[in-house]
């Protein structure tokens, strides 16, 4: 009886030790493969160094007539720089507390939307990513129910501060990182 018992324990011990070795080896191999082979195969698809290097551009804004905008390509995306009229600004500010402002977390007041990264505020210059927050189309200027932008793809309406008011887009147009480096020159990115 005692003998059988001892034998069983011994066999059991042996199996457990071996299992640990097997599991250890397999884990080691799996982690090694994942880190050494699988990850490089996935990560190669992420942005390459040269793509990441094109991070910022400088833009001359002296030639934008009041009431119009320019479109620039930054990191493959459209950026709007709009020279707003006094009326545009007044309208946007009057709507600061409107009930149909859907996105109240992303710079909801007009005053917050015209401040650059260093804190300079120029209400007449509005800088926006021209990328509809729904599925990425470029909205058209001076259209839609709020005289700001209208996205032709699925019908989102943005106001004169670039805030979403109506349609499927969930968020306000994004303000890219930018700063005034001269009176009529901004750096984006």
């Amino acid at each position, binding site marked *: 009886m005692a003998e059988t018992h001892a034998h069983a324990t011994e066999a059991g011990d042996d199996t457990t030790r071996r299992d640990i070795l097997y599991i250890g080896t397999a884990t080691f191999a799996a982690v090694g493969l994942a880190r050494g082979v699988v990850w490089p195969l*996935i990560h190669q*698809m*992420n*942005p*390459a160094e040269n*793509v990441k290097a094109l991070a910022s551009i400088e833009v001359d804004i002296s030639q934008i007539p009041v009431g119009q905008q320019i*479109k620039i*390509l930054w*990191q*493959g*995306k*459209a950026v709007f720089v709009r020279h707003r009229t006094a009326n545009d600004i007044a309208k946007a500010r009057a709507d600061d507390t409107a009930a149909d402002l859907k996105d109240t977390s992303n710079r909801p007041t007009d005053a917050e939307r015209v401040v650059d990264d260093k804190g300079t505020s120029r209400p007449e210059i509005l800088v926006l990513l*021209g990328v509809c927050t*729904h*599925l*990425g*189309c*470029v909205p*058209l200027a001076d259209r839609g129910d709020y005289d700001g932008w209208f*996205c*032709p*793809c*699925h*019908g989102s309406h943005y106001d004169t501060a670039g805030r979403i008011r109506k*349609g*499927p*887009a*969930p968020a306000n147009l994004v303000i890219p990182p930018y700063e005034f480096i001269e009176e009529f020159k901004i750096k984006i990115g």
Partner: protein
Amino acid sequence: MAHQSNYNPSNGFTKWMDERLPIIRLGYDSFVEFPNPRNLNYWWTFGAVLAVALIWQIVTGIVLAMHYTPTVEGAYASIEHIMRDVNYGWFLRYGHANGGAMFFLAVYIHMFRGLYYGSYKAPREVLWILGMLIYFLMMATGFLGYVLPWGQMSFWAATVITNFFDAIPWVGGSIKTLLLGGPAVAEPTLNRFYSLHYLLPFIIVGVVILHIWALHIPGSANPTGIEKKGPQDTLPFHPYFTVKDLFAVAVFATFFAWFLYFQPNAMGHPDNYIEANPLQTPPHIVPEWYYLPFYAILRSITFDIFFLKAQLLGVIAMFGSIVILFFLPWLDRSKVRSMRYRPVMRFFFILFVLDCFILGWVGANSPDVTVLGIEAKNIGLFSTFYYFAFFMIIMPVVGMMETPKPLPEGIHESVLARSGKGASKHADGDA
């Protein structure tokens, strides 16, 4: 193979081969002697049409690749070069572009056939799932290919579709960047799409082989939905079905040729003849017709539900509308396969086909177009509701409640009854 092999190698070479690689036996068992139900109608010929379409896409694609340049600078110009300079380039490109559309037409007929005749039910669940996998890969391949000409529609389709992933909480943004290879659709995107557009059709070939393997275990279903019981119910694949399939392929090819030679741009969008411009979205973007119903489902959800945003819900509904098809074998609770004997389900099926067309119409039009005073977006919402209700409510409930019409004794009896000869007169001398 599921049936007994009756292949007899007849000469020295075939005997020698049969002992080493019995591939001639495989071909004989699968496409010569294979016993098919004798009552298959023309809806069953679309499998052959699909096989030919896949080969056509691969052959024309490989030769197009000899002239195409996958760069932002060169892509659009190389398409024009193919159209104007390359010998028969217009034929190859129109053949490939229209061929893609024909491929989808055939697959939709093939799938509705399966739906109507209950081909997805036991023991053909795996066969159905493999088919769905092929369909899913086709959708991906078609999308990737559409980006390659680098026209305005190509570019904005790529932008909108990759943005679906942005809607996924937390990880969505990283997945999108990984797909694009940068902050927006650009050269890295075009390059990887080209690589994958070349790869996926060959993966489809692999899944098609599994699909046919799974088919040949139980053999084809048939319009009565009852299993074959003996030799009186079947005919050999060759010549009966090879000829029938070839005839269908020829008719289908004629239809395709009409598009190819007379209306090569009828299914395309003029905007894709404008080179891609990342600063300007075309005023009206719509996908190719074969994606329209899903596009309508995506756009139909314009309201938030609790903390779930409309944008995410739209994407979930769109993917869900495809994923739900994978579960068909378990959603349908009826033991009777063919809707020929299920009058209630048949009625809902016809509504479902109509619903798909309506969704297609909604997808093609702007959300605020009105018909009889109803806005397209409301029609879209209702049709989306019916789409899901058909699978999630009607299918299980009708399956349990409906009393089917009496089934025929067997395939043989059904054939004779239909041709008016009566089930009693057996010895007809055919087969």
